[in-house]
């Protein structure tokens, strides 16, 4: 369960005060698949950064899986991100000096899992996503769809409760984007993982059970 109550986020850009979110209250149920849509600068990404604990709200409270994120120190919030949240980025963010296996296993490094277990789990997951022939490839040797599947594997490796996807199809062609969305939908259905996705793409949003629209920092 994700609960945002009267959340506002303000920041300064040079001398100007920018209000990214205004008194936003939102409840996202466990195991749901929700898309967040809205124009650029409307506060979509800010919303998922709040849920990931990467941002602290100026006012209001963010409660994820019963944890009030504002009250957690760096150690605890890092552990929370590591175990509860899985990230999928538009530009994949796969370090090029790691192979697909190493990239997928990266969150387990911060969990303290030993290398052998890490590699076994990463290989299993990548094989599940049809990447068994790409295990030792570096990101620049993979196609966009393959790279995003590696990124999804990385997001899932620690069995998180929530996957936060920031424009996961934004850097892919339509067909590949559809495959990625199908994969996310499958993960949501079969594993019961809550998927919260920021997108501009109506077709991608069509895979979600609910679409949350935001404009100028408020629910539309």
């Amino acid at each position, binding site marked *: 369960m994700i609960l945002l109550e009267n959340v506002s986020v303000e920041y300064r850009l040079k001398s100007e005060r920018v209000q990214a979110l205004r008194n936003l209250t939102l409840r996202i149920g466990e195991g749901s698949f929700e898309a967040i849509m809205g124009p650029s600068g409307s506060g979509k990404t800010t919303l998922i950064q709040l849920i990931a604990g*990467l941002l602290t709200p100026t006012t209001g409270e963010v409660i994820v899986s019963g944890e009030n994120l504002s009250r957690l120190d*760096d150690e605890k919030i890092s552990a929370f991100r590591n175990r509860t949240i899985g990230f999928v980025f538009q530009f994949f963010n796969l370090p090029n*000096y790691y192979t697909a296996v190493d990239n997928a296993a*990266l969150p387990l*490094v*911060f969990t*303290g899992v030993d*290398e052998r277990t890490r590699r076994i789990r990463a290989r299993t997951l990548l094989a599940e996503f049809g990447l068994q022939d790409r295990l030792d490839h570096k990101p620049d040797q993979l196609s966009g769809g393959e790279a995003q599947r590696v990124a999804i594997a*990385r997001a899932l490796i620690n069995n998180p409760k929530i996957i936060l996807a920031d424009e996961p199809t934004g850097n892919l062609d339509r067909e590949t984007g559809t495959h990625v969305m199908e994969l996310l939908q499958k993960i949501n259905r079969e594993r019961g993982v809550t998927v919260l996705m920021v997108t501009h793409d109506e077709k991608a949003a069509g895979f979600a059970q609910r679409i949350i629209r935001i404009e100028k920092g408020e629910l539309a």
Partner: protein
Amino acid sequence: MIRRRDYLRLTTQKLALRKKRAVFAIISVALGVIVVVTANSLLEGVRDVAVKTIWTEEIDPDLIRVYAGENPYELLPPEAGPKQKAKKRIEYLSEAVFDEIRGWPGVEAADRPIVVQPVSVNVFDKRPRGANELQGVPEPMLLRYVTDRALVTANTNAIPLVVGERNVLLRFDEKRGKLETDPAGEKVWLGREVTILLGDNYAGVSRFQYDYNKREFKPLGEDEVASQHDSMERSFRVQYDTAIFNTTLTLKGRIVGFCPGSKVLIPLETAALCEKWVDQRNRVASRNPARVTSEVVYGERGRRTPKTGEYTEGAVLVKKGADIEAIAKRIDEMGFSVATQARTFEEQARAFDSSMRIVKKVAFAFGGLILGLACGLVWSTTSKTVSDSRVDIGLFRALGATKREIRRLFLGEAMLQGVLGTVVGMLLGWALALVISHWVIGFARRSVYEPEEALLIPNSIFSTNPRFCLLLIVGAALVSLLAGLLPANRAANVDPVKALKRE
């Protein structure tokens, strides 16, 4: 929580991405370390050699060397007039002076100087032919033979006068191959310390014969000695004024009954013969009265040639337990210069260390300067890594890395450069020190006039000090940590939101 192995893996991966810069930083650290390690290894080695030399000089702990005061060579002839008035006129040492000193409490003996004949080890069956051929004779024996002047007398045949004897407890130092006094030691040998005054007109007379089979000295028969003596006397009469040869030399030595690890050098019984030689000396002296002359000759610089019975130097042997400094002061007050060698081994070692400290300081300062520059490079490399890794830092933070873990990653990178540089520098420094040591020793051995002198040259002046090495590694790690602190803090404070944002 990141496992230790993963810290190392992540750090090396990051460093590998900036190979050139990292290698440059490591080489810089290594250069500084090379200077420090090379200097330290050689200076420690020189100290080791010096300490051994100090031990050999320690033989005269209760001897005062006396010189004829404010250099009488500088005195001008009386007719030089006013110039001379400014100077204190000091006479040469004489028998009257020695007689006076002999009468003081605490003085064992006082006498005129002697000249020790050049040392030769050609009595050994396997005499070293070249500087590097030291094998054949047990080294401890050879070294002792050459460096311990008292033992040299066995071969130079000066006539000794026993002035004091005492039993001493000795311990054989395997490492140095030498005997040391060890009054409190558990495992000790009893030795006989004999204080002798060597007076000689006929130093060339052989009194010992070396037994090649038993490797020990044996006294020659009375007839053989007398025969040599007569032959030498005839030679003196022809060539020299006996007055010149009436000067004698003073030497205090230590005669040891046995020497574990090598053969007996001088049997204790030999010491008993000394008393006989005293009479012999007196007899010889009575047959050769010194030429009496009152003529005073001035040299080019106004120096006055010493008359018969005048000496430029002498020696005073102090009784055990007597205040050597007080006696030396008293002699000084008489107008003579004194030099005591009463410093203990520790005092001499400390004095040497203090002079070495200056050289060390200069070398260390230079090395420290290079290390300082190297630290700058470590800082710069780590800073660059942080700047180039902003996205990765953001990603790591998003995936669950804590600020502390990020900080540690970059501190580890800085430390790795420092420690790698130190280890590489240390190995290269040792190699360089070994090469220099080899070169110096080779040069020194080639430069000696007599092959026997090479025996005194050690095989190496290289030495390592494990404590210093450990300190250097720990120090380098700390300094590089310090260099990496700022960039590591910057990395820990990278905002993941901004880092992952792509326009």
